[in-house]
């Protein structure tokens, strides 16, 4: 007796859904998952870039990274530099991009909003190297930023040391990153804001709610999933920052104050050829990212918002 199988519509949809995600899964497996596994395995070896052989050394790379100086560029300093940069960049970026998006939503003419959307988003299209190069010229002692600082503080010929003072150097990298990516997150917030039904705002107006009250009591709670998404994305992106710091160092800035983990990975692996050690660093970064993402999820528990 021939038994005919019957699939529910959901199962059929799920089957097609799975089929459509296969290319993406394959891509992810090849270009993300495989390198992660590879880095994990390499982190337990003494692999060097140009050596033909390598051997298993257990946790030696990890022990080294947490106890030694790594040629003057310790992992501890890199973790400090990365966390300083991340905290100093992603929190203002999330807050200000949200405010800008909320302000832009107030613009009635779509053309006006479009103009600001393009203006804010434009730097995100630039390559990071180009962006950093432009800012290097601006931060030069004879550059516009120093001149503006002199005008602002009513001084003359003062070198504000945007590239030479440790603290100013860290601020400089944060400013470049903030300028480059703020538009991207503004667009994400605008999308989130646009998805809130206008009827809710209309009801609030009828009930006599002020704009300030509406923002805090309606917009923000309904935007929570977008806020969580944007803050996690911004944080992860900041943790992975590389080109800004790299370009600054290439142009003569001191490495130690801005030696973020990714840059240390690059110098250890590519410049000094210590691939095993660099892989161990990348695993440490991976764990930090995982932990911080988990923490953020756990503390911001976003309930599904339904309109």
């Amino acid at each position, binding site marked *: 007796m021939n038994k005919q199988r019957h699939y529910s519509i959901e199962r059929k949809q799920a089957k097609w859904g799975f089929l459509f995600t296969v290319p993406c899964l394959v891509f992810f497996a090849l270009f993300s998952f495989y390198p992660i596994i590879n880095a994990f395995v390499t982190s337990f070896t003494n692999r060097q870039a140009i050596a033909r052989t390598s051997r298993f050394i257990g946790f030696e790379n990890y022990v080294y990274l947490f106890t030694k100086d790594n040629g003057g560029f310790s992992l501890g300093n890199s973790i400090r530099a990365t966390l300083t940069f991340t905290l100093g960049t992603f929190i203002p970026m999330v807050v200000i991009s949200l405010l800008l998006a909320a302000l832009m939503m107030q613009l009635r003419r779509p053309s006006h909003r479009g103009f600001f959307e393009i203006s804010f988003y434009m730097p995100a299209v630039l390559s990071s190297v180009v962006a950093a190069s432009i800012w290097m010229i601006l931060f030069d*002692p004879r550059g516009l930023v120093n001149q503006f600082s002199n005008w602002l503080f009513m001084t003359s010929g003062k070198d504000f040391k945007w590239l030479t003072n440790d603290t100013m150097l860290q601020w400089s990298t944060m400013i470049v990153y903030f300028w480059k990516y703020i538009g991207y997150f503004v667009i994400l917030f605008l999308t989130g804001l646009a998805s809130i039904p206008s009827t809710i705002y209309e009801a609030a107006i009828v009930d006599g709610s002020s704009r300030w009250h509406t923002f805090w009591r309606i917009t923000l709670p309904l935007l929570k999933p977008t806020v969580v998404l944007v803050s996690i994305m911004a944080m992860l992106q900041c943790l992975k920052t590389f080109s800004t710091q790299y370009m600054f160092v290439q142009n003569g800035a001191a490495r130690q104050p801005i030696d973020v983990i990714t840059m240390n990975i690059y110098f250890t692996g590519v410049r000094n050829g210590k691939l095993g050690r660099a892989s161990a660093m990348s695993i440490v970064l991976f764990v930090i990212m995982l932990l911080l993402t988990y923490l953020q999820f756990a503390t911001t528990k976003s309930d599904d918002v339904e309109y």
Partner: protein
Amino acid sequence: MKKGLILLLSLLLLVPAVFAQGSKEAEEDNAPVTIEFWTHEDVNRQQLEDRYIQEFETAHPNVTVNVTRQSAEKMIELVQTSFAAGKGPTMFNLSVNDEYPYIVAGRVAPMDYAAAGYKDAKDVISKYMDNTLAPVTYKGEVYGLPLELTNWSIYINKKVFRDAGLDPEKDYPKTWEDMVTISQKLVKRDGDVLTRRGYDFRYKYYLENCVPMVEQLGGQLISDDGKEAIIGKDAWVKWLTYMQQWGPNGLNLGSPTYTAARKLFNKDNNDIAMCSTGLYQEARIKADNPKFYESGEWMVVPYPTFKDAKKDVAACFYGHYYMVNADADKKTQKAAWQLISYMLSHGEEYLETTQVIQPTKTLMEGETFKNMPYSKVFKDDMARGHMVYYGAASTAIQAALDTAIKQVMLQNVSAEDAYTELKATCQELIDEQ
């Protein structure tokens, strides 16, 4: 008789086989060969080399040469990552301190002497100036041939000197102390901001340009037995103090964050008076600013020494050597050495056109070199100098020196503290080898 006939017939039978073998070899010789050639950018050199490659391809129709050019700094990373991925270029050139680890790791092939037109290692070495092949000689074999050997002396813009009321012919700096006092006279500022510098160092290249300063004071980078790093505390601290004074937190005469002095020099924009660079800069001035080159308003003077120098040492010389990938098959290796040899057989033209020195005895003792402006200054400085430090950790040591310099110049770290950290770091790097 019968036996003789059989032998003769047998030999005749072998003849086609022998010829067949010969034609097979000829066929193999003519089989297509592709050479991936990676080199650093230099506009003047590129024109020459493109022509040599074209000529070589015409003479060897089975050989195709693909050239990749990148900045010297980028090339270091590209070559390393490609070797790490098991797919390096057939032939390449890097600075010797970056190339040496490839020899030790067995990633580059010893010379195919016959293909390059030499009898053996001894024959090649005898054709080059003393010790210039030492960094690429390992276990009796030569692994590379120099595309260029460079040392740096001091270029001076006479106009800037005169503008500051100095006579360049008499007042040029003979000592590092002079360098400070003269730079103080040459420098122009808008408040704290430098608008004209006297001299500025070539930051990043400390092994070449700064280690000799320490050696003048009696210090040493690595001990002769290779076991101890950063020797002679007084010398190192004195040098670090000198650099601290040079920087923005001292006398404010220069900084690593300003545009490289060498890049500004050719423009003759009254923003730099002196810079450290090699003979090749003459060709670059000529190409970038012929008017300035022809004006005779520039000159080259020897590398200074400290007043109380214990040793007379000039800037280290460094070489870019052509090397061949050991993973390439023998035939490709042979073709690569033939190409290298063909290109390097034009040493005189390289010198005339690009002012790149290939340190063969013929060239260095020839009239062309002698007639180059200021070639004597470079030759004399070369005699006072030595080959730059090369070893498996040279890149990391260069980075450690960079940290120490920036600590004292930009980060207000004391010279003593920077020395202590530098010593510990370099020692760790040496111990790791």
